[in-house]
């Protein structure tokens, strides 16, 4: 675990405490990995309160699943801050997209249960902001593909490049099965998502106003079985999950009463399709307990 260079009179004690926490965390993560039979695990963590950062396989690339929606959100707010898009502009809710693999049109397999309110708007319009909200809070694939069409994949990549976010590669929208079969997938690393969320947390993702709006949307996340499940009830988490067959991810900013937030990214991949797993929540709990221990809590 690295500590920023700033030294204090208690620097020696802090270093010892950090080293102890690092050992404990490493052992704990290995135990979780074994217990849940996780094939690949990537973790990145940064605590704004203590400036501690820690990582495990943080540059390992994973199938992004729905965590790629964070990059789409970033691109939407890039366009917004540049005046190229307003958040109340109408978008035609139409279930028809073009595969990046063979340029053939494809449709999402949607129904009222999976897409709720967006499904009810089929044939009509929804605003950019509404779509961004459903893309994040309900992880709507439909909203995501509509927004990818609005901003365009090149703009998403430009946003990541502008903010010097390495480790996130967005090639396409979601459920593009032709592209999936051809191995054309969106990828993320724990470090890449950590960088993106740190910028959002610190108000540096296209300015404080845009960052605040992104945080507001992320705080309304409805899928809470990942990072929030390992935290006390009072914790607030601005986060985005990603679950698809063999991968289960969560990436978020954790707000706890009386301290600055910490940013945590947990990426997991299993050898075969798993049902519900508590692996992400277990890692989240370990990180929290580690911090609480260091704070004397």
């Amino acid at each position, binding site marked *: 675990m690295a500590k920023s260079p700033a030294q204090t009179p208690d620097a020696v004690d802090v270093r010892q405490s950090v080293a102890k926490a690092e050992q404990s965390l490493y052992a704990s993560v290995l135990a979780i990995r074994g217990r849940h039979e996780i094939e690949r695990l990537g973790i990145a963590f940064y605590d704004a309160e203590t400036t501690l950062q820690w990582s495990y396989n943080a540059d390992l690339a994973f199938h992004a699943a729905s965590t790629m929606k964070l990059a789409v959100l970033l691109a939407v707010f890039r366009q917004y801050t540049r005046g190229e*898009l307003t958040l109340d*502009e*109408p*978008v*035609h*809710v*139409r*279930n*028809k997209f073009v595969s990046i693999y063979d340029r*053939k*049109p494809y*449709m999402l397999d949607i129904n009222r249960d999976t897409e709720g309110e967006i499904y009810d708007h*089929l*044939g*009509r*319009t929804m605003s*950019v902001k509404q779509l961004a909200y459903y893309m994040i809070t309900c992880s709507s694939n439909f909203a995501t593909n509509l927004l990818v069409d*609005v901003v365009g994949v090149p703009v998403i990549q430009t946003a990541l490049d502008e903010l010097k976010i390495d480790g996130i590669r967005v090639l396409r929208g979601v459920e593009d099965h032709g592209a999936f079969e051809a191995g054309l997938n969106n990828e993320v690393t724990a470090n890449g998502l950590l960088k993106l969320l740190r910028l959002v947390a610190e108000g540096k993702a296209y300015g404080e106003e845009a960052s605040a709006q992104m945080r507001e949307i992320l705080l309304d996340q409805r899928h809470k079985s990942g990072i929030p499940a390992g935290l006390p009830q009072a914790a607030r988490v601005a986060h985005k999950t990603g679950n698809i067959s063999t991968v289960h991810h969560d990436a978020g900013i954790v707000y706890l009463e009386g301290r600055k937030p910490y940013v945590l990214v947990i990426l997991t991949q299993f050898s075969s399709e798993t049902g519900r797993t508590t692996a992400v929540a277990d890692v989240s709990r370990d990180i929290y307990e580690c911090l609480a221990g260091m704070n004397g809590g």
Partner: protein
Amino acid sequence: MAETETESGLKIVDAFDLEPDLRALLRPGELVEGIGGQYHHLPRYFYEIPSHEAARQIRVTPHFGLNEFLLVDLKEAARIRAFPRYVPCAIRILAFYLERLREATGAPVHLAVNGGYRSPAHKLSVAATPHMWATAADVYKIGTVVLRERASIETYNRLIEDLTDDLYVMPYGHEIGKADDHIHVDLGYVSIVPREISEDRLEGPQPRPRFAYEERRRGDRRGWPREPLPEVLPAAAHGSPSGHDK
């Protein structure tokens, strides 16, 4: 000639006299190439719609409001989406045929977003399409039937083909030139010159803008008092329209 829309009909403008930014987007009279390699002149005469409220209130036929042909999303240029808005005068002919479809189906006919008039600046206007002439419609729902399956689309396609030879109906399919989530009908590249406006060869902005007001010849929609028709016409010919679908 009357001077206000309330005293007369819709304002008809010669698009060559519009502001430069609008003219650049509407490109009146310009030749554009279609997918098949044919060239067509873009329309020159447009109705001017002053406000959203006016678009909602103006009926083009008993069951179709003008606003239904103007539904677009952010793929349309922002200036085109802002009022006053402009729509080619051929919109009336399209509405006439859609009204016939409405009568034949006995159910509300719903136009899709981006399924009515699309300017040449619209992102879907990659080649000359009758949507740029306001002579095409994409229908995504009839009554309660959302048209996204072969059976429903082909059933209505056949009904339309039986109804008139004037409408082209796009076949069902997934490829370009086919439709699988709506019904596309169009009248081809029809431009009309309303009787009230004067034509000339001056294809550029003029110091005195050329415009006219449409006569109030469609009295029912504009609130004229209804006079009984002579007995020589069958009663059904002057029955009241059944109202707007929404």
